[in-house]
């Protein structure tokens, strides 16, 4: 079923179409919710809320953007609302480097044996600790493969800001990796 047919079926109130929609877009919503909130325990409820909002607001979808982008924007707003409600981190202008405050206990088990897999885990830990806007943009671009324009539609951030968060985010990860793993050189030159 293509997105046009899916949207029409949803507008007609078809719950089988809703099931299809959830199966098709659940990874997108799940990844966004997990990365944005960093909380597995709230993720399922929030995902449910996102899909219910999608169903209730489907009449507002005019087809100007891709369905995935529109669902992404609903997921983004739901996460921001949830974080405001629970008075947790919202988008801030704090220095991202200072915001990444990794406790020694977070990383020391990883640093016992350094290989490429450990390095990847370390990147995930750093990402978890990054400010919300960086985590969101990085996830949408790298994991969900949205374009700059689509990320702008989802988050409402201007394209230039999106690009800047991406390049600054990468720079932060690089910097933190070299800080945390002093013997990073041999791992990088592994075959």
């Amino acid at each position: 079923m293509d997105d046009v047919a899916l949207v029409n079926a949803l507008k007609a109130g078809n719950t089988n179409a809703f099931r299809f929609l959830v199966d098709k877009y659940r990874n997108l919503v799940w990844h966004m919710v997990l990365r944005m909130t960093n909380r597995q325990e709230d993720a399922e409820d929030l995902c449910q809320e996102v899909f219910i909002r999608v169903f209730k607001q489907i009449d507002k979808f005019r087809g100007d953007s891709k369905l995935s982008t529109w669902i992404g924007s609903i997921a983004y707003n739901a996460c921001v609302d949830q974080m405001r409600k629970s008075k947790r981190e919202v988008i801030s202008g704090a220095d991202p480097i200072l915001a990444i405050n990794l406790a020694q206990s977070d990383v020391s088990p990883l640093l016992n044996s350094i290989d490429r897999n450990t390095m990847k885990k370390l990147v995930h830990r750093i990402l978890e600790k990054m400010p919300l806007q960086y985590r969101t943009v990085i996830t949408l671009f790298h994991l969900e493969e949205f374009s700059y324009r689509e990320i702008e539609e989802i988050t409402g951030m201007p394209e230039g800001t999106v690009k800047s968060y991406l390049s600054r985010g990468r720079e932060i990860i690089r910097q933190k990796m070299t800080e945390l793993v002093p013997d990073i050189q041999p791992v990088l030159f592994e075959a």
Partner: protein
Amino acid sequence: MEMKEFKKNLDGIIDDSLREPPDNIFPDDFTDKLVKKLEKQLAWQELLTEFGLKTGLVLLALIVMGICLIFPAKTDPAPLIQWVASHRLIVCGSIGVGLFTFVFDQVVLKYMFKRSRQQF
């Protein structure tokens, strides 16, 4: 040259890990639970809309009836208002019982029947 290679390799690892989804496992029964939740919400919504419409119709009929009875005959509504005011407990009680029966019959019972039909 080595610095360039270092940066390239580090970027390779960063790219690979950023493309990897989070480790957290998606619940297997998520779709079923969600569809059930939506169906429940839709059922409530439908029943409440129906109830609102029916109540509106009944009220409209009563208002029209009242206007038809009072205005053409030029009856003074004051005695009626006085009677209602003096018997307000009985009037409010009767409206309350009527409303409760109506809600129970039109919303709660219908919802329970719908649910039991879905379960079996």
